[in-house]
């Protein structure tokens, strides 16, 4: 689909049933792989996630299912499963997110898939990984936030722990899975015949990996990092005239310049305040004064003033403000798919020679069933017609 992609020529079966798996497959497609989504008769589960647009289309599905073709194939029916297996026999990569027991009961365990296609890379992305005590437990972004430690440090001490906003475990795990698949493709190229392998991604472990600093801090401190008792400018966004603003200062000159901007010359010039550990231990001596000054500013005026001095500063922006953001617009961060559709954000990073492509928005379920079964599974038209007639494909 993508002529200048780094993954040109790589054929991927997206058998995912989760946002994490779909995000992994989206990245593979963005960088040039030919990705076919095999979705069940009810459609990919992301299609049923709110919010929806006026036409009833899931925004999340529109975001994570782009750049690929869709076939409806019912792998609960033997002929549908056979067609999927034929496609797996001819693919480079298979992305799946079923719990390991479900994979095995469909006969889709790695050993049997590899038997039919020794070069196949199978990437399983599940809440807790494909082995271990929790492998058959269901999970989602909430439970992953709980078990990874993140919920225990997000939010306030006198209120419940908080999950991260949105679908963070899904995007993190999907991205880790993408990088792992490309790594396996790199390793595969170096051997002849090319060997595939099984990649086991646990959403929990990816989130616990992003929790690594807090985990080791807690070990060194001798007690687990706790949620904050209150939010002040040393720990997060605080009120300004038209919203909230984070002035989480790190380097000494940031402190000096910011305090001067706020008109707190005594705090700016006293060298003791230059180090972050001193400020942390004496927060009650400056926080109220500085926050009283902050409350008089509009967030973008303060940002612009501090930015001119090259001081870090963080106005809290909402999605409508980001859509109009002068910097993101200058960098062409928003773009519509080549074949039309709404403005999408992204990509997450810009590659000079092989930029991520956004060719098409998410396919309708089964939009390409015939072509996918022909090109991926190698089926004759008569066989495809029989599958469609039986309802094993649509």
């Amino acid at each position: 689909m993508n002529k200048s992609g780094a993954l040109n020529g790589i054929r991927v079966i997206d058998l995912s049933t989760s946002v994490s798996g779909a995000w992994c497959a989206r990245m593979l497609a963005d960088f040039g792989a030919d990705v076919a989504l095999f979705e069940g008769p009810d459609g990919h589960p992301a299609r049923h996630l709110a919010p929806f647009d006026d036409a009833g289309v899931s925004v999340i599905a529109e975001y994570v299912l782009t750049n690929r073709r869709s076939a409806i194939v019912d792998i609960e029916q033997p002929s549908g499963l056979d067609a999927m297996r034929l496609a797996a026999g001819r693919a480079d990569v298979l992305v799946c997110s079923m719990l390991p027991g479900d994979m095995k009961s469909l006969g889709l365990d790695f050993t049997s898939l590899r038997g039919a296609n020794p070069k196949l890379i199978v990437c399983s992305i599940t809440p807790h990984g494909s082995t271990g005590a929790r492998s058959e437990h269901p999970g989602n972004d909430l439970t992953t936030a709980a078990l990874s430690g993140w919920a225990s440090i997000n939010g306030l001490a006198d209120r419940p722990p908080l999950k991260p906003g949105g679908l963070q475990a899904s995007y993190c795990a999907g991205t880790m899975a993408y990088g792992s698949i490309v790594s396996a493709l790199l390793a595969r190229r170096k051997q002849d015949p090319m060997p595939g392998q099984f990649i086991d991604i646990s959403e929990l472990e990816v989130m616990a990996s992003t929790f690594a600093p807090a985990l080791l801090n807690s070990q060194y401190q001798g007690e687990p990092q706790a949620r904050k008792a209150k939010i002040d400018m040393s720990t997060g966004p605080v009120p300004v005239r038209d919203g909230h603003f984070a002035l989480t200062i790190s380097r000494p000159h940031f402190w000096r310049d910011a305090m001067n901007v706020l008109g707190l010359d005594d705090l700016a010039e006293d060298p003791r305040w230059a180090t972050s550990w001193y400020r942390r231990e004496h927060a009650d001596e400056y926080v109220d004064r500085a926050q009283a000054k902050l409350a008089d500013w509009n967030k973008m005026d303060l940002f612009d003033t501090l930015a001119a001095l090259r001081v870090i500063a963080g106005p809290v922006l909402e999605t409508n403000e980001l859509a109009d953001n002068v910097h993101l617009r200058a960098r062409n961060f928003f773009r519509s798919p080549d074949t039309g559709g709404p403005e999408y954000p992204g990509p997450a990073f810009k590659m000079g020679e092989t930029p991520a492509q956004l060719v098409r928005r998410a396919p309708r379920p089964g939009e390409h069933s015939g072509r996918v079964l022909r090109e991926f599974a190698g089926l004759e038209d008569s066989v495809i017609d029989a599958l469609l007639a039986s309802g094993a494909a649509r």
Partner: protein
Amino acid sequence: MTGPRFGPLHGYRGIVLTQAWAGSYATQILGMLGAEIIQVEFHGRPDSWRGAYDRPIPDTVRDAPGASANQHTWNVNPNYNSVNLNKQCITLNLTHPDGVEIFKRLVPLADFVVENFAPRVIGNLGIDYDALRQIKPDIILCSLSAFGNNGPWRDVPGIGGTIEPISGMSALLGYEDGPPLNSGQMYPDAAAGLNGFAGIVTALMHREMTGEGQYIDLSMQEASLAFIGDAMLEERMTGNVRVRLGNRHMTFAPHGIYAAADGNWLALAAETEAQWAALSGIAGHEEWLRDARFGVNEARKANEDALDVEIGAWVAGEERDSLAEQLSQAGVMAAAVLDAHEVAADKALRDRGFIVEVEHPEAGVHPQSGVPVRFSDTRAKVERHAPLQGQHTQEVLERFLGVEEVEYQDLLKRGVTGAGPSN
């Protein structure tokens, strides 16, 4: 000149200038997958995650099992030590012409270079992409910065704590009735780091196919925004500005974190009617299934406040771990809210080899988060503790550049390399 002999990326080498979290995390993952990572730390301007040199060291670190009696603040910072596993560290003073010269002699030995200075810095040092390409035409350079390498905010500095609000993430994190929050530890760095890893392996793939290197421009603001991209696309598709949802889900109810007995917390959710039926049964509240407010997901979502009161009253008397296990066994989404010590001690995470005990020569033995992926054939692993500052300078310069003892001592004496405060 052999590097690691494990993992899908063995045989690749990065000479990297990464620091703090995002860049260091990206290159740590590459190292865990078998790439050889030589981290070049700026002598005289140390990695901010090594902390201030005059920072007090807590007694708990002094007394840790296996801890050295001779600890240096910069070697016992948990931030640094948590995101620099599997690396070798050399120090070079990059404001000294000889420091830059040594760096440039190392570049031809690298497949990729990664840095997360402010964008103008590598140009000032004379080692931007064009300069590196002169030295090695197929080099891959990945730059991670706050706002990317062009645009009006290019030179505005940023850290996770300011990128979180300015990327839209903070506006989505918080209680439904409360203000926007930052995460407990600057999460945008982690999101950027994972994407840095993804970008570098993509560039390696392109180089294998074509022989071409390339430049990767990673803006932390954009990487973070991509990870709330569905909320951003929602605004573009529907005009709706998403608000904070606490622990709730846009589609499913129940979906929350509830107080259990003994001050513990339990997360639970039902995404299917089967899960809801199983949950109601375990709760001993089958009447919920017949309650018009709770019978189907749509009704539960519409009556979520009342639902949360009912579930909260039930969970309050339950023991966290046994209820989480019972619900999970029944196919309901449920999990204990673990604190950092409980994560480190978690048996399932240890059994899978994710949490590993790492012995560090100064800080002693501590559990750490390990490799977030399992490969069946090309195993990834934790092989090295985070390096001491400059631990590998002499060895690396000798191995790669043939620098001998006398010359190394001269570099030390002239401040081209060294450890600790530079004066």
